[in-house]
C-alpha cells in the first residue's frame, strides 16, 4: 500500500465565522472539510460567540501549497480581530490524489 503525505490544517475559530471560513477554504483550494464543536480559552478576551458557548474546530486535508495559502490568509484576514488560531501538520493518507487538488477555483 502506498502512503502519501499531505497537510492537515486545523483551525479553531469562533462559531460566528463558520460560513465565511468554509467559503474561504473552498476558494483557496480545499476539497473537503470536517467540523467539530469545541470551547476554549486563549490570550484574547471573550469573543461574541463565547456566551453562546462554542467555537468550531475545522480540519481540512490539503496539499502543502494550499496549506500555506490557508495559514497566510487566516493570519491576515482573521487573526487581528477574531478569536482564531490555526496549525498545520504532516499526515499520511492512502489516496493522496483525493486531497491534493490544484490550488483555488
Amino acid at each position, binding site marked *: 500500500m502506498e502512503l502519501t503525505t499531505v497537510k492537515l490544517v486545523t483551525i479553531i475559530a*469562533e462559531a*460566528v*465565522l463558520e460560513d*465565511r471560513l468554509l467559503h474561504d477554504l473552498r476558494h483557496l483550494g480545499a476539497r473537503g472539510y470536517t467540523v467539530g464543536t469545541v470551547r476554549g480559552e486563549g490570550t484574547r*478576551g*471573550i*469573543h*461574541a*460567540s*463565547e*456566551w*453562546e*458557548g*462554542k467555537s468550531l474546530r475545522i480540519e481540512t486535508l490539503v496539499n502543502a501549497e494550499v496549506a500555506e495559502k490557508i495559514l497566510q490568509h487566516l493570519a491576515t484576514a482573521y487573526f487581528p*480581530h*477574531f478569536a482564531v488560531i490555526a496549525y498545520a501538520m504532516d499526515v499520511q493518507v492512502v489516496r493522496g490524489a483525493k486531497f491534493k487538488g490544484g490550488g483555488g477555483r
Partner: protein
Amino acid sequence: MTIIELLQVNLLSPMVLAFALGIIATLVRSDLKLPDELYTTLSIYLLLAIGLKGGVALAETSLAVFWAPALATLFLGLIIPVFAYSVARKIGKMTIADAAALAAHYGSVSAVTFAAAQTFLDAVGIRYEGFMPALVAILEVPAIVIALFIAQVAGGPQGGDWREALRELITSKSILLLVGGMIIGWLTGPRGGKEVAPLFVDLFKGALTFFLLELGMVAARRFRDLPSAGLFLLGFGIIMPILNGLLGVWFGSLAGLSVGGSTILGVLAASASYIAAPAAVRIALPQANPGFYLTASLGITFPFNLAIGLPLYYTLALWIVGGQ
C-alpha cells in the same frame, strides 16, 4: 398596588428567582451547566411561541389600531441608536466601533425581556394589546442597520463585511422565528392555535423560568468583566434603559396604546438585544470589543430591566397613560 408591592411581585416571581439562582450558581462555582442545546432549544421555543401567540391575536386585531404603534416603534428604532451612539462617543469617549456596537444593541430589542414583561403584567393582572410581538419584530432590525451605517459613515471602510451582515440580520433566526411564528399564528387562527396551545402557551412561563436560570449564569459570567468595563459602562447600562424606557412609554401613550401596551413598548425600548445584535456586530464591526457590548447588555441592562425595570416602566405608564 404601590411600587413596593409591584417590586415584590416581580422579584418573587419564579422567573426572577430562577435568574438569581443562575447568578448564584456561577458565583459559587457550581458544576451546574445547562447543555448548550437546551439553551438553543429554549430560545427557539420562546421566539416561536411569542410569534405564534402574537399571530393568533393579530388575526383578531383590526389593522386600524395597529398602524400608530407600529410607526411609533419604527421611530424608536431610528432615534435610540443615534442617541446611544452620541452618548457613547461624547460622554463615554468610546471608539467609533465600540459606540456603534452599543448603539446597535440598545436600539434593538431583547425578546426575553419582552416575554418577562408579559409575564409580569399577567401576574399583576394588566391587559395589553395582542399585537405586541409584531412590535418586537419591527424594533429588532432597523437599529442594528442604522448603527452599522453610522460606523460605516463615521469610520470609513471597516474591514467588516457590511452586506453579509445585513443579509444575515434579515434572515437571522430570531427574525425568522418571530415573524414566521406570527404568520403561522395569523394563518392558522384560534383553531390551529388551540391545537398547539399545551406546548406553546401553557408551558411558556415554565420554559421562560428555565431559560432565565441559564441566562443568570451567562450574566454572572459577564460580571467579572465589569471592573475592566469601567464606570461609564455601568452608568450607561442603567441610565440608558431608563431614558429609553421613558421614551418608549411616552411614544406608546401618543400612539394610543393602553397602560399595559405602553409598559411593553417602554420595555422594548429599554431592552438591549443579545441575540441578533451581537452576531451582526461581531461580523460587521470586528474591531468593537465584545467585552463592552456584551457586558453592558447582558451583565448590566438585562438584570436591571428584569429586576427593577419592569415595575418601573409600568409605574411610568400608569402616570403617563393612566394619568395617575
